[in-house]
């Protein structure tokens, strides 16, 4: 388990277009310089958002990785939830899950309405 190395790779990926191109062309190859476990390597190659969140990757780093893969915002949030459901609580790092009701339910409770023309999952 080397959360630091996982986050270090994502930090570089997020800010370096050349590493992004390398990762797009050869995901495993782009990881070569980082000291990762097999589990971490697989999660990064497969862009397993839920598993990466379970590892404890900071969301401020992870959300850009999700965007790189074209994962839409609500889907990104759901994948993290699914990861926690599948793998258990976040292993290390700053996160605890607080049992939030979800964006749509929260907005509705505040009397706000979603803009027209958007389709939402039940929990976003």
């Amino acid at each position, binding site marked *: 388990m080397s959360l*630091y190395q996982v*986050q*270090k790779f994502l*930090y570089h990926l*997020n*800010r370096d277009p050349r590493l992004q191109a390398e990762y797009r062309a050869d995901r495993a190859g782009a990881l070569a310089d980082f000291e990762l476990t097999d589990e971490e390597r697989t999660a990064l190659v497969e862009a397993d958002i839920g598993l990466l*969140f379970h590892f404890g990757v*900071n*969301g*401020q*780093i*992870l*959300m*850009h990785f999700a*965007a*790189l893969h074209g994962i839409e*915002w609500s889907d990104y*949030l759901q994948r*993290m*939830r699914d990861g*926690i459901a599948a793998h258990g609580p976040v292993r290390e790092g*700053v*996160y*605890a*899950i*607080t049992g*939030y*009701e*979800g*964006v*749509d339910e*929260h*907005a509705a409770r*505040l009397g*706000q*309405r*979603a*803009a027209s*023309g*958007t389709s939402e999952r039940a929990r*976003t």
Partner: protein
Amino acid sequence: MSLVFAGVCSHAPGITGRADRADPVVRDRFYAAFDDMRQRLEAARPDALVVVAAEHFANFFMNNMPSFAIGMADSYDGPIEDPAWLAIPKVRVPGRRELSRRIIDGVMQHADVAYAEEWLFDHGIMVPLHFLTPRFDLPIVPVNINCQGPPLAPLHRVWAFGEALRAAIDAMPERIALVGTGGISHWPATPDSGKINEAWDRDLLDRWCRNDRDALLDYDDTTIYADAGQGGFEIRTYLTISAAAAGAQGTVHFYAPIPIFAVGCTVATYDLS
């Protein structure tokens, strides 16, 4: 005195990137408040804008994390994010290296700070600039406080940093504006994204407006985390502006939780007159 403007605002990426998913009535009131802040800023006729931000691993990482950093370059590129994701195009923002140098020298008389001759702006600075300097024509001096990766500077050190920043700005012949950006309570980019503790936010803003040092320092990261999430660590940017405002009283021009923006959206200023 050369501090001509002091305020705070939100910076969450959803404010621009997910604009079409918010309640249009609430969103447009928020945008109008941002535009009012822009007009107040312009009326102060600043020569440069110091932005106290809480960046999100765009430049600073856990290999070498400064608690406090100030940019020292003639330009800064941003956003680091996909422009389509943030809905802000790539742009080169002007800086003023020599002004940064003088401010850094001044701050260093009282507080330790790292300097950075390279700095890629992320949403933490780009979203406020998108509203406050939409032509990206005002020279920026970026300031960062580590609010993301603990260990974090304790709040009384943040206050001392704000006072050092004010002393440095007061020694400048230029007219300097100061804006802090951050969330109040929020759980950004996590499964709890959208959660907002409105009561906690309003209490913080009350303390901020009264500029009550003791009340503003009466937090610790354990209770912030429990009540306001890891995003609440970003109150450090708000406290810096309070310290720099040196007793000035504040006004909240807008506050409303907007869950799809993942934050209680805020625009507030201090009366420096």
